[in-house]
């Protein structure tokens, strides 16, 4: 007879190896110890997330306002060039070349 079949024929597959001692309690305890997040209030997590979103939005808004003000200041300073001052002072409209040619 085939040794594999012979061996399997004498083998009682319904018998099971006993569980390690305290296995069931160990598993349940492990599960209840490792899931503290279920004990915390989900409301707190939502509140923290909402605060973060509000702070970030305010920060972005503040930065954009600052950028606008900075752009205005730059525009204001670029208008007051030396050339503009000469025009204002001497009433020249055709550029500074006319002024320089007149004083030569």
């Amino acid at each position: 007879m085939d040794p594999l079949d012979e061996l399997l024929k004498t083998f009682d597959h319904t018998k099971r190896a006993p569980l390690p001692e305290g296995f069931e309690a160990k598993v349940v305890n492990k599960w209840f110890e490792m899931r503290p997040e279920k004990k915390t209030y989900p409301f707190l997590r939502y509140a923290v997330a909402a605060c973060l979103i509000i702070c970030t939005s305010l920060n972005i808004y503040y930065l954009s306002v600052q950028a606008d003000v900075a752009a205005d200041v730059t525009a204001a300073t670029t208008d007051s060039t030396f050339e503009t001052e000469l025009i204002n002072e001497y009433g020249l409209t055709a550029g500074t070349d006319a002024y320089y040619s007149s004083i030569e």
Partner: protein
Amino acid sequence: MKADAEYIAELKSNDRKAYAEFVGVFASGIYNVALNILQRREEAEEVAQDVFIKVFQSIDSFDGSCSLKTWLYRITVNKSLDMLRQRKRKTPWTVFVNLFGEDGEEKETAVDFVHPGIQMEKKEEAEILLAAIDKLPERQRTVFILYQFEDMSYKEIASTLETSVSAVDSLMSRAKKQLREQLNPLVYGSVR
């Protein structure tokens, strides 16, 4: 034994007693499948614990496309095979370190399990058989164990391994052929 829906509802209710009852019902089957695949008690216990933790974590996402038992066995098989791969990946240096342990204490590395259903007078042959099973490719080994040791049908095995019945049949034939090739010369001293 309760219906699957009852177990699922109880686990979702977060009741400690329900968890204990669930583990009590399924632990023996899961531990023995892991033990038959791994043939090492310590690793089988670790895998069985991981299976239950995984089930508790994912019970909300269980879609009921298969039975609870099939789902549990699928997780057990996958985790056991992961453990086998992890064992094989160990470098010679890791094996050396594990053999003696950090505290110099020798750790379990060899097969330390013989199925309790094997008769004492057949123990030597059984040890040869278990050693031969240990050498089988992982899919063949899994199919052979689920069929011979867990008494599962080809259909149940196919569902557990998410494959076809014909694939299970083919894996079983190849497993038996390979086991015979290893057992015949060892048991009878000649190839039949």
